[in-house]
């Protein structure tokens, strides 16, 4: 039975509600973690009330023209099949009696009860017909129908027959094109908001219905794009002994005149033989104002329109007339070409395909049924909506003022701990040094902790940076347990009154189970203040996989109920991409964490803040 059905405006006023009181605040959680995060194209949302309350599933529908939202809440253990149906019927009926001036709709109770009875009756019928159909089809289609029923959130069987194969890959052609359902594909449970523990459940159908083959294994076998060169232990190639003296490479017209070889001339033990002058390269780019080019963009929609011949069914003249008169109601067919063009544009900017798809669907969900304003075309409406959506996603959810957090931790008398995690070769150690340099410029005492005890040369690398910046470094050499090294480093920092501890970890692939477990142990043991995921801007579709797997492992392997997840993203190698800035969007969308720093070069000053407006402009150019 439905727990509750709510109708409210986009501005927040509840217009009508029916049902029992809910434990916790599922609606607010839905809005905050789903609808405002541009995930409104998903099929349902799971909510667990804190402190062991009930577990609910929520489904929703929009009426974009009137600005209404319809939400149905029911217990997760019941798989109600008629909810989608009911929501559509409710939307239809309510929009007829809706009046913007009224705020109470008591007569709707009767209508609703009737609609509910009808929907339940229809669902019963469908179930009975499905049961009678199931017997002959049992042999080949066991998977399909069974999984289709199991994914209880599906209402209309007629539309969703093909989609029943949740959890399966698109490549699995046998069961037809189950369009990668969000609740199937998102096997990584995305935990991006911490309070109250909210899980957008990907794997609702954990164990397969018929056990013919293990869905989990299929997931692992699925070939991944990108970085799966070495799944083992991420060994970096050994540095070859330098026989040939290399010439400095000149990147631009001004050759650098400082020498680049900083190896210690005398001894290997790392004692300070040569006293380096403290590295001072001027103001870090974090503090420089970014001059945003604010000229208006040219209307490039002309090109888009001309490349799509003959998709208009209504005829050019009438659609032109309607766009001027401003009465056209947007429907899916109108939006599809514009959205497809937008999606392609996003993908050429290196946004992961999955993310682009989901974003376009979310924008479609928010535009469907809306009336076009006068003198606007479909493509410009879609463009504005997409721009708003991108701006919303990239705007940080919480404050990214690290200095403030550092001061707060200082007052409490403990050091502020930052852990840098990421896959191999993204630039963790380099950017750690950049962050240290920036913090030093603001009179904050920093200490480095070399917890990369695996890769040869990692400790020496950090030691060199520490010597150049003249900050203490805590190291225990190689082959030690990184979690223990980190813990001791933090103790040492509190002893010598360092404000910040920057912990460097070894790079690891997201599929490497033992290494991910070790990372999880490090984070749980030391409970850092900031877990920074370092990702490079060159990454393509793999960004989605990396972040979701990292988050999932951190969540699964944690011992406390409120697991620490990735708190921020550090985007590196930003200077190597010209305008293909989509990796930032993919990473932020999938994890919900804000981009705190952007690394754009290899010297100490090359650290910037993310300029949201310029990224949005570049993405949509």
């Amino acid at each position, binding site marked *: 039975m439905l727990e509750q059905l709510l109708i*409210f405006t986009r501005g927040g006023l509840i217009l009508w509600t029916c049902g029992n009181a809910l434990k916790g605040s599922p609606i*607010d959680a839905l809005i905050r973690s789903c609808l405002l995060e541009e995930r409104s194209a998903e099929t349902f949302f799971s909510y667990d009330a804190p402190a062991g309350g009930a577990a609910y599933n929520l489904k929703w529908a929009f009426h974009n023209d009137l600005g209404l939202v319809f939400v149905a809440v029911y217990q997760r253990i019941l798989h109600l099949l008629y909810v989608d149906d009911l929501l559509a019927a409710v939307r239809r009926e309510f929009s007829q009696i809706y009046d913007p001036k009224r705020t109470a709709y008591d007569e709707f109770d009767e209508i609703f009860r009737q609609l509910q009875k009808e929907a339940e009756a229809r669902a019963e019928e469908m179930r009975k017909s499905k049961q009678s159909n199931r017997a002959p089809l049992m042999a080949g289609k066991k998977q399909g129908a069974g999984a289709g029923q199991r994914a209880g959130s599906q209402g209309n069987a007629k539309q969703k027959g093909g989609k029943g194969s949740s959890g399966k890959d698109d490549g699995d052609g046998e069961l037809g094109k189950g369009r990668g359902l969000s609740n199937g594909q998102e096997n990584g449970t995305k935990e991006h908001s911490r309070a109250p523990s909210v899980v957008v459940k990907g794997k609702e159908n954990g164990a397969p219905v018929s056990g013919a083959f293990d869905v989990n294994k299929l997931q692992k076998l699925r070939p991944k794009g990108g970085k799966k060169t070495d799944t083992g232990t991420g060994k970096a190639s050994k540095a070859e002994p330098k026989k040939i003296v290399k010439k400095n490479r000149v990147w631009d017209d001004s050759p650098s005149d400082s020498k680049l070889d900083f190896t210690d001339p005398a001894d290997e033990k790392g004692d300070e033989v040569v006293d380096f002058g403290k590295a001072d390269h001027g103001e870090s780019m974090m503090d420089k104002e970014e001059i945003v080019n604010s000229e208006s963009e040219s209307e490039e929609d002309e090109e888009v329109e001309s490349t799509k011949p003959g998709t208009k069914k209504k005829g050019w003249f009438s659609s032109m007339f309607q766009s001027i008169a401003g009465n056209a109601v947007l429907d899916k067919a109108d939006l599809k070409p514009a959205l497809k063009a937008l999606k392609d544009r996003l993908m050429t900017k290196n946004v992961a395909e999955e993310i682009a798809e989901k974003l376009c669907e979310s924008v479609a969900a928010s535009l469907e049924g809306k009336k076009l304003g006068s003198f606007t075309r479909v493509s410009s409406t879609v463009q504005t909506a997409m721009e708003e959506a991108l701006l919303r996603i990239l705007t940080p959810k919480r404050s990214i003022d690290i200095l403030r957090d550092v001061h707060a931790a200082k007052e409490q008398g403990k050091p502020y701990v930052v852990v840098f995690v990421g896959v191999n070769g993204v630039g963790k150690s380099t950017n750690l040094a950049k962050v240290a340099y920036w913090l030093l410029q603001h009179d904050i005492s920093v200490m480095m902790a070399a917890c990369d005890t695996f890769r040869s040369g990692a400790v020496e690398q950090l030691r060199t940076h520490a010597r150049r910046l003249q900050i203490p470094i805590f190291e225990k050499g190689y082959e030690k347990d990184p979690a223990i090294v980190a813990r001791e480093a933090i103790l040492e920092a509190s002893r010598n009154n360092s404000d910040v501890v920057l912990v460097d970890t070894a790079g690891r692939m997201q599929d490497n189970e033992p290494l991910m477990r070790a990372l999880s142990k490090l984070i749980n043991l030391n409970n850092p203040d900031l877990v920074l995921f370092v990702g490079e801007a060159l990454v393509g579709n793999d960004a989605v996989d990396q972040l979701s797997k990292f988050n999932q492992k951190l969540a699964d392997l944690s011992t406390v109920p409120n697991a620490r997840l990735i708190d921020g993203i550090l985007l590196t190698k930003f200077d190597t991409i010209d305008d293909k800035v989509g990796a930032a969007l993919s990473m932020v969308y999938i994890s919900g964490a804000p981009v705190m720093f952007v690394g754009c070069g290899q010297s100490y000053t090359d650290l910037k803040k993310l300029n949201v407006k310029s990224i949005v402009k570049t993405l949509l150019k």
Partner: protein
Amino acid sequence: MEQWMHQIEQWVRQQPVEQLYAAFAVLVVTIAFFAILRLLKPAKSNTIVLAGLSGSGKTVLFYQLRDGSPHQGTVTSMEPNEGTFMLHSEMEKKGKLKPIHLVDVPGHSRLRPKLDEFLPHAAGLIFVVDALDFLPNCRAAAEYLYDILTKASIVKRKVAILILCNKTDKVTAHSKEFIRKQLEKEIDKLRTSRNALSTADIANEYTLGVPGEAFSFSQCRNKVTIADASGLTGEVSQVEQFIREHVKP
């Protein structure tokens, strides 16, 4: 009388046609000029903006001011609520009062940029603070308030600000003096950390307070006052007073 009219008519008929046209054109232009001047004269704004963290009670307050009751409750707003109306308590009063244009801006951090759309026209800003659940959100509220107090559109136009402690109908709500002191302390700390970011922190265009002294709201260039209210029960008299002060009839 009639003779007089007749004489004028004859006189007019005698004028050459071009002069008549010229006179007529000049008349039209003058009228048009005055009409445009009237239209373009910036009317004294009647916009009041409700801002604050998510969950502090802005939408409830909006409907309380408009209709006298929060109806069936609210959820997190996804879009701003706007309306031009007479305050509900003033519906009974006779007399010509100017309707106020009240805007409730969502408090969710992802929707913060929407505030910048309404600030240039604001005559007053009400910053709503949850007096019940104050301490966990104290820092976030102080940051938001700091950002607002240092925006150019607020400082230059000397927009008046009312810090409203909402939900005072509950027993465990904090007093407005306590909230004021906590906010002043937090903003003081923010001042030092933000000022330390040198000249280029583009987010804050002005600095607050007097360097060297602890921050207090009386140091702001705008008038900042603090009041209590309870959106749910309808105790909004202080709010209405503030609104009426700044939206002159």
